[in-house]
């Protein structure tokens, strides 16, 4: 699926809930089904700075697409990363670089978008895009 379609799908999913608790519960559930990073890759190198909880993201390139696995020691953070991976994983570097993240706002998680927020959603997005950029420049 294209990034746009996945984002639409997530927006529809979240529209189903009418309060924040259900949205958070759903996010936590998504976190539980995330493709988890292999234990051996949980190193300093793949730790994302700027989060109060620990977040590891590991990138690989497969058939021209970037595939991410990740984990976090906090469940809410894990849910947030999982949502990001649903959108960004298995996409080409170009698509990842061009994607916007307005959907986060639309699914009622706007508070996590603040650049000063301790969970570092902004740092996560930046890191995913950095990996995409690195692969893109390798390909060229």
């Amino acid at each position, binding site marked *: 699926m294209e990034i746009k379609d996945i984002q639409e799908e997530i927006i529809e999913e979240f529209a189903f809930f009418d309060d924040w608790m259900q949205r958070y*519960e759903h996010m936590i559930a998504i976190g539980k089904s995330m493709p988890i990073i292999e234990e051996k890759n949980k190193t300093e190198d793949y730790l994302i700075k700027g989060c*109060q*909880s620990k977040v590891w993201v590991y990138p690989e390139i497969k058939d021209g697409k970037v595939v991410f696995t990740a984990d976090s020691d906090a469940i809410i953070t894990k849910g947030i990363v999982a949502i990001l991976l649903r959108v960004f994983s298995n996409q080409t570097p170009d698509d990842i670089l061009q994607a916007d993240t307005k959907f986060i706002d639309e699914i009622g998680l706007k508070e996590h978008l603040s650049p000063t927020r301790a969970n570092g959603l902004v740092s996560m997005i930046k890191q995913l895009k950095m990996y995409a950029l690195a692969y893109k420049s390798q390909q060229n």
Partner: protein
Amino acid sequence: MKTGIKHTSFDVEKIREDFPILNRKVNGYPLVYLDNAATSQKPRVVIDAIVDYYSNYNANIHRGVHSLSQEATDAYEKARVKIQKHFNIKNAHEVIFTSGTTHSINLVASGFKEFLKPGDELLVSAMEHHSNIVPWQMLCEQTGAILKVIPMNLNGELEMLEFVGLLSNKTKLVFVNHISNALGTINPIEEIIEKAHKVGAVVLIDGAQACAHLKPDLQALNVDFYVTSAHKMCGPTGVGMLFGKEEWLTKLPPYQGGGEMIKEVTFEKTSYAGLPHKFEAGTPNISGGIAFGVAIDYLNAIGFEKIAIYENQLLEYATKKMLEIEDLKIYGTAKNKTSVISFNIGEIHPYDIGTIVDKLGIALRTGHHCAQPIMDFYKIPGTVRASFAFYNTFHEIDTLINALQKAKRMLT
């Protein structure tokens, strides 16, 4: 009342009316502010004092001959005297206005550079805020002095026998917080000061957490340096105090050069002003200093004894209620502690709990509380911390308990 705890004459509802911010809602819920150890909220009299200064007599101090400057200088110097009286300090010139605890500690640490030599020893407690660790580490790097740590037990109490064992004629400085921000422990500073003095060591007490809860008598303590921040005691941010005994403040070199701190300047040589101005270079936080004085008046009008009794009731009630939550573990169970509860619930990450209760309007602190060595000691990444002030209520604690239970259900 269903808590079974007797109230004093303390009228918390009336006190709450003094704090405008306590009326606001957060995420649709009435604010429950339980992050008082990070900074306290401000009563209207303190806010008004700042507005009044800028509206009616804003001028630079100690400089002009004009009336406004005189009024501002008088108000600022009156605040200094209020601080002096409050802490029972011998001389007003032993009160140095700083930007806060961190600034005060750095000022002292930097001044001791010329009094230390390689091999001298400095003692720090195992439960310090980074502000009371890093400046001294920098000092050790610059001088070759050695930093040694006074250990604590699992309850979060200092091992006083080990402390005594660490003291020797090599010990030059001892710095300990009066109350730990992460654990709430009230340290036996009288004993620490007395024992350190016996070997000729100088003692600095970090009172950042203490001054909102109790009223230290600095002459009785016979402490060499005592530092604190106004913002934790209902005053504004960006202003604080360094108390130093006159003999030490006279010996220490100035920290920053500039206006206000000089007696005479030529390009060949500058002679410094006397105390306290020697350490107060540049235009200070004038409104902040004045409002600091007002905050002290405000707290004294309520009364520190009443504050302590009420906060202890809050602490007891909250501790009891929290321990009813299965798997909740409290870090910091010293016999002598203030209204701070650091905890974790099972394996749940502190950040998750903080996020969920925030959605319910409750402000808690999560993380390492600028005291990573403590977290390492307990081998945890961090804790959730609820810290209570005299304007918090038993009802708010009930709200917190409900929220924690909800968070626990969601997160396990």
